[in-house]
Each structure stands twice: as structure tokens, then as C-alpha cells.
């Protein structure tokens, strides 16, 4: 029986390479989606894909040439002989398949490809100097006032921020789908938990139009609230926002 397996060595190697391709193309985006906890598949970059495939083919060839016997088996598949029906079928398929594959490669390279948009943005522009020195006046007040401010802020957050950022501050408000740069999920520990109150004050007050030129408003839909909300209200919203999202602002380093 061992002899039979050897007859089809070439086919097994080709099948393995084929499986590798299918795995990289269809299975790995799903696997990485689960591993990275994303809500969309993570497709393999095409250059990486090419390198993996080259390595896969080389590995197959290395395996096939580990001994003279193996190499002879490997090539002998292409020889005519007392083949079974399945062998002659696979042989013919290979003979036809190779030129078709070459033709297909040339076709995909030659047709005009549809460009797909590249979109990058500076995630975390630097806080402008004007806002650096500000202090949230409400954080200095007594506990009772602070508690009230948080509650006031939550009401304002639910009224004006909720349509995009969501009732839970998770970036899933009813309008969220409509903005291609999705509203930020404040529960994500990489967002408002990494900045101080001032930063949020700047972002709420100036919005996307107030972003510096290195992070110009290409797609951010964050409105500027400076004409509609008083400074106190913005500070309250910030406190309410942290509370709703269940995260804390970054603690300032103590200056000597």
C-alpha cells in the first residue's frame, strides 16, 4: 500500500499547497477576527500572502527532494504508465490546469484593478498649549457637588452625545453606522482612559474642525460644541462620560 501513496506524491504536495492557500485566504481572516476580538474579518495582506505561498511551494519541493527515491516518485507521476483511472484523470487535469493557471495569473495582473481607498489618521494628536494649563474646576469641589455634576453631565451626555457615542458610551449610537469613521468607544481602555480631562475638553469644544493640520478632519464627524455648550457643561459632560463608560482619566504625573 505504501507504494500507492508514493505514486501520488506530486498530487499530495500540490494538495498541501492548495490547502495552505485556502487557509490563508479564507480561514485566517476569521481566526484573526476572533483572536484580535474585531467585529470584521482581518484579511491577509497580499504581499505577506505571496511570501507564505512561495515558502509553501519551496517547503513542498524540499520535502519532495529529501531522497532520490522520493524525487523519482514525485516526477514519475507525470510519466505514462499502467495508471488507474484516477491517475490518468489527475494527470490530465494537471496538464490542462497548469497553462490555465498561468493564463489566469496573467489575466489578473493585466485587468485594470479597482483602487481601494487607504484611510489613515493620527489617532492621538497632541493637546494644544492653550488647553494644557486648564483644570477641571468641578473636580476640586466637595463630594456632593461632584456627584451632582456627574449626574448633570450624564444627562447632557445622554442628550447630545448619545446619538453617536451610544447610551453606554460604547460608540454604538443610532447614528454610528452612518459615519465611516465610527464614533469612538469610550469603554475601550485605549481611548479616554489614556488622556486627562483637558484633552476631552479640547475635543468637545473644538470638534473635528479644530483638529491640527497633521490630523485634519478628513472623516471625523465630531461636532464643535463651543457655540452651544458652556464650559461648565462641557466639564460636567466629561465627568458624566467617564462615569458612563466606567473608566477613569489618566492620573497626572506629580511634578517635583
Amino acid at each position, binding site marked *: 500500500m505504501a507504494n500507492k501513496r508514493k505514486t501520488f506524491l506530486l498530487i499530495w504536495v500540490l494538495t498541501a499547497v492548495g490547502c495552505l492557500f485556502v487557509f490563508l485566504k479564507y480561514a485566517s481572516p476569521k481566526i484573526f477576527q476572533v483572536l484580535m476580538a474585531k467585529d470584521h474579518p482581518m484579511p491577509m495582506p497580499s504581499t505577506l500572502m505571496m511570501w507564505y505561498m512561495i515558502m509553501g511551494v519551496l517547503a513542498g519541493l524540499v520535502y519532495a527532494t529529501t531522497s532520490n527515491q522520493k524525487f523519482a*516518485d514525485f516526477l514519475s507521476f507525470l510519466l505514462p504508465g499502467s495508471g488507474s483511472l484516477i491517475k490518468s484523470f489527475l494527470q490530465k487535469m494537471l496538464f490542462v490546469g*497548469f497553462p490555465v493557471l498561468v493564463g489566469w495569473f*496573467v489575466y489578473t495582473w493585466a*485587468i*485594470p484593478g479597482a483602487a481601494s481607498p487607504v484611510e489613515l489618521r493620527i489617532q492621538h494628536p497632541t493637546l494644544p498649549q492653550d488647553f494644557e494649563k486648564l483644570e477641571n474646576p468641578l473636580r476640586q469641589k466637595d463630594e456632593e457637588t461632584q456627584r451632582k455634576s456627574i449626574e448633570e453631565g450624564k444627562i447632557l451626555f445622554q442628550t447630545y452625545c448619545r*446619538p453617536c457615542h451610544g447610551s453606554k458610551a460604547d460608540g454604538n449610537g443610532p447614528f454610528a*453606522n452612518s459615519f465611516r469613521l465610527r464614533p469612538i468607544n469610550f469603554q475601550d481602555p485605549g481611548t479616554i482612559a489614556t488622556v486627562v480631562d483637558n484633552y476631552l475638553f479640547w475635543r468637545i469644544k473644538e470638534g*473635528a*474642525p479644530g483638529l491640527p493640520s497633521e490630523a485634519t478632519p478628513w472623516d471625523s*464627524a465630531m461636532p464643535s460644541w463651543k457655540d452651544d455648550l458652556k464650559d461648565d457643561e462641557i466639564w460636567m459632560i466629561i465627568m458624566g462620560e467617564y462615569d458612563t463608560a466606567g473608566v477613569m482619566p489618566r492620573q497626572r504625573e506629580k511634578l517635583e
Partner: protein
Amino acid sequence: MIKAFKKGLIGFGLIGVGICFFWLCGEVSAQSSHLFRTYKHEVPQKLQETPEAVAEGKKVYEKRCWYCHGIEGKGDGPASKTMFPKPRNFTRNEYKVRSTTLGSVPTDEDLFRIITSGIEGTAMPFWNTISETERWQVIFYVKTFNEQFMKDVTAKVVSVVSIASTPESVKRGQELFKETKCYECHGEDGRGNGPLTVALQTEWNMPYRARDLTKGWNFKGGNTIEDIYRTISTGFNETPMGSYLEKLSDEDRWHVAHFVKSLAKDMASDVVVKVKLCENDQLPTESSDENWSKATAVEVPLAGQIIATPRHWAPSIDAIMIKALYNKSEIAFLLEWDDSTNKQEEIFRDAVSLQFPTKIPESLKKPYFAMGDSGGTVNLWSWKAYWHEGFGAVVEAPENESGSVIEMNAKGFKSVTIQPSESQNVTGTGIYQNGRWKVVLKRTLKTEDAKGDMQFEIGKLIPVAFAVWDGSNSDVGGQKSVSSWYYVSLEKPVPKTVFAYVLIAIIMGASVEMWFIARLRRFPPKLEEE
């Protein structure tokens, strides 16, 4: 004889495999993903309903729910002012998604499902992010707002057993849709534009909107066939949507459900609107033109304009569909969106606008998506429904009047200018049919006004954004539904030479292969066992 048969079999097999291969290659396409809230059916074991649980529920309610539903459960929380539909008033029995008969209160399980799932098209989020215990506790507390929960202890639940859909069933459902007068509210094509809905909405100013049955993602009680059947059977309390439990037999309700399910479509969303080359010399000028079937439709979700005051918190148009075609000299866009009325007033009129930057951006930097900014001008193509009546009149735009088109430039909300008449080169027509506006906008690819007009180039990604106004929702100016930047791309035609290259490649591949095999056969590898 047998040998010839074998050869034939192998040949056919190969051709089949080849066809499958090419077919599979064509199937790969990109999709942009949205997070639509869907109705989830699973319910875990219920918690014991104790006074302690109710007290705990009160805490949850006053931490998470009251901002919208109000501290007394009247649906009048402080945040409700930026919402439409309004939050549920728990003191009344206006529960919609139930498994119980019309007029009854929902079961605890119904409430659990809706709290867990959220409701798409409303502000209700999905609360599967809090523990099951908390969800049960808050349900027990919410029930205390309405005495009926105490009275209707044994709720009569409508049973739902799935029945498979057949073309006959869908057809019968369509007949019943007419016979039972579903169209009076939902419209003949199910777009929520029936005469009763329009009357309630515009003349009576009632908050009822019949569901647009073509938008499958917006079904409040879920869009599976069982969900639709259940909604038809139970109806929605305190809305014009009644129960058809007695009016229609069980079988008939399944037929109607299958018909409704056949209307419901998913959103065909994509980031790039691919503009196909129209080989014919003439581009379609009417929305009814057959050539539009060649173009791929892209649907874009819209949000209220909330960037600048006056902000629009309650838009009525939540999606727009775009198709586009081009030829040697022109480009044409077909814009379609569902609108339950065609009523126009002098100021409040149905309208649509396409927005392009004035230049194709070289880098990633684009003008601000909301009407541009001081550093980036945008070119607006704006279509407005017909109007010729006097002040105060409300009329439907007649079908033979195609509306008016103007071209504008903007550098932000506050600096919008109408282009001079010699630069007005967009033409367009709009027609309202069965609850849907269909507007065609057309322009030459290049114009003389290179400063104010987008100059289209083949193969480039050209940013585009959309805005829609619904006159009957008092949309005007900044009060509109908007999208952020998407793209249009004029597809390069496949040059004929490609096929010559492919043929040469195949011949060369085959020759190399034959040479290799011939060589292999002349000098076969030595097998060690021989």
C-alpha cells in the same frame, strides 16, 4: 469503446472543474460591515421575582434607563428630547414587541429579549453588556410602573411554529396583503407610504410611522419569518398596527409573513460606488431606463446632521441608494431613497445633494465632509422637488414636473455660493413613485469651470458625500440626513489586448509544460528499486 468513454468522462470533468474555478474567482467581493441590532430569541432561566430583586432593579433603572425612559417611567427622560421614536412610556401599555395577544402586557421573556437585543432604528441599545441577573431585576422594576402586569398574570401567548416558504405562499401572501388592506398603511410596495400613514403623519401630526418593509434591518421585532408572523399575529399595542389573529387564519398569516419576508432586503453597503462604462453613446436620462440594471447599487446609511446648529436629531431618511454610469463624455447618477410622502411646501421640500471636492485629492486630505472648510472647497449638485404654489400651501409634486437642479460651491456651512448661470451644467430629473424618490443627475465628465467643478478622471478614487431632505419632516437647510465621505470610481474598461496576453501566456505555459514532460519521458528518473 470503454476507453473512449473514459476519455470523454475525463474531458467533461476537466471542463466542469475549470468552469467552477472561474466562477469561484468571480465571487470574491468586499463588504463594509455595519452593526445593526438584531432581535435575539434566546432567554435563560428566569430569576425569582422577589421584593429584593425589584429593589435591585430600581438601582439598575436609575443608573442606566431613566435618562430616556424617565424617573417615573413615563418615557419623558431628559434625553428623550433628541429622540425619535420617543422612548417607551412604561406607565401605559404601549409595548410593541410581544408574544401575547393584542392589548395584553408582554411576558417577562419578551422584555428580556428586547432589553438584550436593543431596537434598530431607535435609541434603544442592546443591554447584553450587563449581567442577566441585572436584566431580570430591571424587568421586575419596570413592571411596577404598570398595574396591568399584576392583573394579567396568565398571559395568552401566541404560538409560533415555522412553516417553509414557497413561491405559491408568497403569491398568496401578496393577494392577502391587498385583501386585508395592509397597503393602506404600508403602501403598495411596502415602503411605509400608505395613504393612512401619510394622513396620520401630515394632517394629524401623529408619531406613527408604518414600517418600511423593504428595509429588513429596521424590523423592530426582528426580521426572521417567525418574528414577522408573530408581529402580524400579536400586533403592536397602542399603534395602528393591529392584531390579525382573528382576521386571518393561521395559514394566511404565514402567507402574509412569507410575502413580507420576500420584501425585506439587507443593506447593500459598500465604500466605493463603481461607475460602469456604458458602451452605448447615450446615458440614461430617466430613472426608468433599462441601462441602470447594468450598474451596481450601493446603499449608504444616513444620519441626522448633528455637526452644526441647527442640529437634526430625528431624521426620517436613513438610507440612500446610488448607481452610476459613464460614457466617453458624460457621467450620470441615479439616487433613490424611500420617503413616505411626496408633500411639498414652499420652504420644506424634498431634495437631494451630491457633494464632491472641487479637485480629486492627491493625498489623504479631503475637504471637511460637512460642506467643506476654508482649506477645501466642495462642489454640490443639488436637486429639489417641484414647487410653484403660493405660501402656506402643501401639495404633492406632480409626476410630470421633474424638479430643479442647481450647482453650488461651499467652503463650510456659512459660505455657500450658487454657481453663475454659465457654470450650471448639471441636468436632472426626479420622479416619485410608490414611496420612493428616483432622481437622475447628469453632467459632462469635464467642464470649463475647472475651479468650481469636479473634473472626473477614469480609475481615480473620487470622494463623494450625500445629503437628503424630507420636506414633510420639516427638513430644510442644515436640517437634513447626511453621510460622511464615500468614493466613486470610474471603472477602466478591460482592454481587448488582455485576452491576447492571456492566450500567449497559456500557449507559453503549455509549451514549457510539454517540453518538460517530453524531456521527463525521454530521460525518466531512475527508481532505486529497479
